[in-house]
């Protein structure tokens, strides 16, 4: 809400004040206009609108009525919303630590002196981060499906059938987490690689001379030095993991064999098929936008 008015005054006043004081105001207005108009129209306005719409019963066709906090009440008492919140939290709790540990571990491993051609490995581990999520999820449905690669290998080697990963409520979450980590840790690995490269070799060498082993050098010297990067990566990964949608949607809801499970999240797949929306607040993650 606060975004809109402040933005507007800032644009309006830069011209006047800038002219009086520091000559660049006029030019700044010109240079900022394209970006500012776009941001106002396509970011600030929808954010404000989402807040306002949340207080209305707002059908796509027909008249809207002010309902106050009723949408919030409906949402907060809705069982599906609780499930969605819980699932998102479980996802974040599983995904975040695994992502950080794996990306940091691999960054350290690839960065160690003994590894030749580190750029090659970094590129390999980064590739799924740029391929379409839908394509990644399609591959994982093929691998995880009954008689897919994993099930088929288990039958051949152990004579046991693998669980129906995508069709069971127990295994769907680990499957989504696995896919998310596979495609997601590349960014953090590169961030950590850059941070590790910046650690002065003289420090670790001095510690080695003083008798610090590999483990001690890592936890006492390297880790404290790259703490800012870890903090940065944790925050960004936390934000993005609350927004998980596509992997879950395609892997468990869009597959041919599995019926779309309602338990994951209550998301409108096709906005046009819903009759009304009410958006509670600009919170994160999967939350309801379904019609009531």
């Amino acid at each position, binding site marked *: 809400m606060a975004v809109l008015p402040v933005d507007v005054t800032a644009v309006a006043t830069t011209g006047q*004040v800038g002219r009086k004081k520091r*000559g660049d105001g006029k030019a700044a207005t010109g240079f*900022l206009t394209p970006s500012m108009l776009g941001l106002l129209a396509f970011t600030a306005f*929808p954010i404000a*609108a989402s807040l306002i719409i949340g207080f209305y019963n707002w059908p796509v066709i027909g008249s809207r009525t002010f309902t106050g906090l009723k949408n919030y009440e409906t949402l907060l008492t809705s069982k599906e919303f609780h499930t969605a919140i819980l699932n998102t939290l479980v996802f974040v709790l599983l995904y975040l630590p695994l992502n950080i540990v794996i990306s940091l571990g691999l960054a350290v491993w690839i960065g160690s002196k003994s590894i030749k051609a580190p750029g090659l490995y970094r*590129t390999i581990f980064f590739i799924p981060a*740029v391929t379409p999520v839908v394509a990644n999820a399609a591959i994982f449905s093929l691998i995880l499906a009954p008689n897919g690669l994993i099930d088929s290998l288990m039958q051949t080697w152990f004579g046991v059938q693998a669980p129906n990963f995508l069709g069971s409520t127990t295994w769907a979450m680990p499957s989504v987490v696995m896919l998310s980590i596979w495609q997601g840790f590349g960014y953090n690995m590169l961030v950590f690689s850059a941070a590790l490269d910046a650690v002065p070799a003289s420090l670790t060498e001095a510690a080695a001379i003083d008798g610090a082993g590999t483990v001690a050098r890592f936890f006492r010297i390297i880790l404290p030095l790259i703490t800012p*990067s870890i903090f940065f990566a944790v925050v960004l990964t936390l934000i993005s993991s609350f927004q998980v949608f596509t992997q879950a949607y*395609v892997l468990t809801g869009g597959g041919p064999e599995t019926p779309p499970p309602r338990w994951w999240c209550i998301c409108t797949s096709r906005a046009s098929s819903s009759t009304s929306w009410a958006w509670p607040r600009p919170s*994160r993650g999967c939350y309801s936008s379904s019609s009531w």
Partner: protein
Amino acid sequence: MTSDAPSVTGVTPSVSAPTLPSARPRPVLSSRVGPVISQILLSLVALLFLVPIIWMVLSALKPSAEAFTVPPTLFGSAILFRNFAEAWNYLPFGRFILNTIWVAGVGTLITLVASVTAGYAFARLNFKFQGGLFILYLSTLIVPQEVIVIPMFLVMQQLGWVNSYKALILPWAFTAFGTFLLRQSFITIPKELEEAAKIDGCGHLRILRNVIIPVATPAIAVLAVFTFITYWNSFLWPLIIVNDTIKMTVPLGLQLFLGQQAQRWELLMAAATISMVPTVILVLALQKYLIKGIALSGLGGR
């Protein structure tokens, strides 16, 4: 070293005798063997990591109905490259690719123009509320796309833009991320370069075009690639705003495949392979810049 201990206290001297000479050069040996083992292990991990992608390509080449076999086979009874052609034709996949190239290309262009100009204003100009305005820009980065998707849909509906390329392109062309990335890059350019141009009588536009942009080309290239990849992979918004098959982008096409092609997994995998080619080529070609860009900003398309 630990394995040498028994040889000293060993019961059988005949066994310890041959191990003794090898005990001395051992540190040298292990410092040579260790790295090799580490390299081999890492390569195995990388291979394991690539199994899904390898499996995708292998499955794409199999005859129909051989995607699920017990035991699994690397190759089917025949290797069919025509699966790719069939996938291309089964749905208008060529059309999806053209659509996506158009949307991603134009979107990237608009993003670059808006980000370069705004980045210049924040980095090289002085105006009132500069700091506050920049923080407002940054604060929009924490708002997830899901929050604005439904109001955005209503806006598009009011404008009559549903099912249009405009609706696929414009809403995401003005992100604060581009402005942020380029501002960080522009701010490092020495003032002297700019002042020399100013003395020569250049205005802001010419300074931007002749001084700033040439110097900051790597950063602009990084932004261009990330923007293109983000548009290329975008799923949630196209899913909501487009339901006309002829306007669909590649991820939507794949989703359509997933729904319709329950029995034709080899075609789906062929389509998935095709959908990955452009972004993978971009990353391989520009990996040096991209890695530097991510290291600087910590985010790209995520």
